[in-house]
């Protein structure tokens, strides 16, 4: 069974990395060795990668200080003795509030929906906006009525001035 060259796909590049690290599982290793027997590119890559791997092995870190744990517990004790506002700031920085975020967002949405839904049902306060709308309409009606009365008076006057007009109007 042939395999696609690992160098030709990023998805299978781990075969090369794992093989050089000695972490490739048995079945894939056999398959890859069969492929590498006739793939010069893979063989060359692997030779270089194996040497890089061995070179990196030489970099050993320094041992950790003997008093690491003691200093660690000192810091923990200091944190425990910190004032409440420092602890609060720490908990905010550490994201302890994050689990509550979806719940808070949901509550805000529900509250916003409630306000929008009940906005029309709120009785108009005897104040500014709604009463202003009503007073505009009333003013127009009063003005029209006054115009009508004035027109009637003019007609009445005109009728009175004409000869032979009746006073019954």
């Amino acid at each position: 069974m042939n395999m696609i060259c690992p160098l030709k796909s990023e998805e299978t590049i781990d075969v090369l990395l794992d093989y050089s690290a000695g972490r490739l599982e048995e079945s894939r290793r056999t398959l890859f060795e069969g492929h590498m027997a006739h793939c010069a590119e893979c063989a060359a890559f692997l030779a270089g990668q194996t040497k890089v791997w061995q070179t990196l092995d030489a970099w050993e870190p320094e041992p950790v200080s003997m008093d690491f744990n003691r200093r660690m517990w000192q810091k923990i004790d200091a944190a425990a003795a910190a004032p409440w506002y420092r602890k609060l700031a720490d908990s905010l920085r550490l994201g302890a509030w994050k689990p509550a975020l979806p719940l808070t967002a949901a509550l805000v949405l529900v509250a916003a929906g409630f306000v929008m839904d009940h906005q029309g049902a709120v009785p108009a306060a005897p104040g500014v906006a709604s009463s202003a709308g009503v007073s505009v309409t009333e003013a127009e009606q009063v003005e029209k009525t006054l115009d009508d009365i004035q027109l009637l008076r003019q007609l009445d006057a005109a009728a009175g001035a004409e000869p032979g007009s009746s006073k019954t109007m």
Partner: protein
Amino acid sequence: MWQRVNTVIGANPAPDLDAQLMLRVRDGDEDSFRVLLDKHRNPLVHFLYRMVQEQAVSEELAQEVFLRIYKSRLSYEPTARFTTWMFRIATHLALNWLRDEKNARGQERLDEDRGGDLPAREVADRKPSVEQRMVYQARLQEVRDAIGKLPEKQRAAVLMHKYEEMEYAQIASVLGCSESAVKSLLFRAYETLRARLAHMVTGGPL
């Protein structure tokens, strides 16, 4: 439900013993925290040392990681493997430190400082001659420089893959990217290292 929990915790179906210890810490058991500290102190400091390449800083950052873990104990939920969470905090702190340091001092000063950290244990164990020591230190310095000059994410990925032997999925979770992105990062990083260390690689390992 069990399948979902396993998926959340990680690719490895084995129970995460560290997460169980952390749950005990959440319930007030400080001894469990001591166990976690003893178990993960060395790998964490070594990872951070290779990231920032300064011993004192790596220990300070490791202590900050453990301190954050301890402070978060009351709200701890095992939604990921413990080591994934721990390395995520460590990587975040290391990258922040590198950025701050880069801004404050510049890369040249950082390179000078790296020269002062010599691995005394190697010298003591092998008892090499002065000349061998100098050759070893020079070559080791080249390895450190080659890794130190990698882009930060590539550096973190290589260190977790090479030295911590972490799986691609776990590295992806720590770095917040996909598995294929991790493979791509690693491939590019090793290609770069191969080119930078070519003169050493052709002569065999250190």
